[in-house]
């Protein structure tokens, strides 16, 4: 059995996951990522998520530039960035963020600047929330792994 410390952390992690699912922030594709992780690729999830953060921040910066820092508003280019963000967000199961991107993209199709500005703000806000929650999740998972390893120091990998 797992040590009490890691039990509580496991409960914490599940509670957070359930909350994120309930809020519609994450969907089952997030869980599928975990199914792709195994001994041959033990850090797959964190690698993908970190890539996602890196890629998304670039895209969000580009969107902000295109919408706010330039005089001509290249809605076409915004659409291209959004397509990429939609793709990668749905791949990692970031459901709520994907939905916001879709709304943003609809606004670009109508060259609706106020709509785009609103959408960008919501998107940036959601991205921050998602990033914080995922970091929290990883942190709990790390602590849980440490606690379990400490309890059973000879046990290789309890995953």
């Amino acid at each position: 059995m797992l040590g009490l410390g890691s039990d509580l952390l496991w409960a914490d992690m599940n509670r957070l996951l359930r909350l994120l699912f309930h809020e519609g922030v994450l969907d089952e594709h997030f869980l599928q990522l975990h199914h792709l992780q195994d001994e041959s690729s033990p850090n797959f999830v964190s690698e993908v998520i970190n890539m996602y953060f890196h890629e998304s921040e670039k895209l969000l910066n580009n969107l902000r530039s295109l919408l706010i820092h330039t005089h001509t508003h290249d809605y076409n280019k915004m659409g291209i960035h959004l397509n990429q963000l939609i793709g990668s967000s749905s791949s990692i199961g970031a459901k709520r963020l994907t939905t916001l991107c879709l709304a943003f993209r609809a606004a670009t199709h109508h060259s609706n600047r106020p709509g785009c500005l609103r959408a960008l703000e919501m998107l940036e806000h959601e991205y921050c929330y998602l990033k914080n929650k995922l970091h929290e999740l990883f942190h709990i998972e790390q602590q849980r792994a440490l606690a379990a390893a400490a309890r059973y120091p000879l046990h290789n990998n309890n995953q």
Partner: protein
Amino acid sequence: MNQVMERDGIISEEVHVLAVDDSLVDRKVIERLLKISSCKVTVVDSGISALQLLGLDEQRTTSESDDFVGLKVDLIITDYCMPGMTGYDLLKKIKGSSTFREIPVVIMSSENILPRIDRCLEEGAKDFIVKPVKLSDVKRLKNYMSTTTREVSAAAGGFGGGGGGGGGINKRKLSDTINSDDMSSSPPSISSSITPSSSSSPSDSSSPSPSPLSSPIRALDSPIRRLKMSGAD
């Protein structure tokens, strides 16, 4: 050369998939999905790179084409929305090539747009997957790829790889009858397998595969049906 693996006493070759996607995240995910499904994977970030690898790009001069050996692949899976050359453009280029038109091409897209799907299937795409790609999608893809020997999986019993080039005919006929939503009009071909190490195409290699067992599942899994179910999984 394809890697040869031995499992359960049966020698089978890994299928080689060329994956094309401009998103770094999606490339990593599709690569993992394919590797976990026992495929050899080459991933590129654009249609142009894909064509270069295959040896289909127009940049090469005739002298280069004499000794250029393109990548041998059993399936190409590509994203639809890509800057520069779209997945659709890539599909057309591949289907327009006498050397490569037999390679099954699968299109992925985060958007479920029926005219787009129709267009791709009409152009010869083998399948259209709405992203995000699932493990079950990849398992289905393996049916489109031919290997020199059949993989028999007693436990799974659902989706063994087919026989060699000759076996491919029977495999395709089976899948044509089972997958009623398959709109592909490419005729079954007796052309030799594209994989380099398949020296012979045993014509009697394909005893009935377990596909009849899995046909109801496959029919449900067919892309058109999935879309019409409006995301019900």
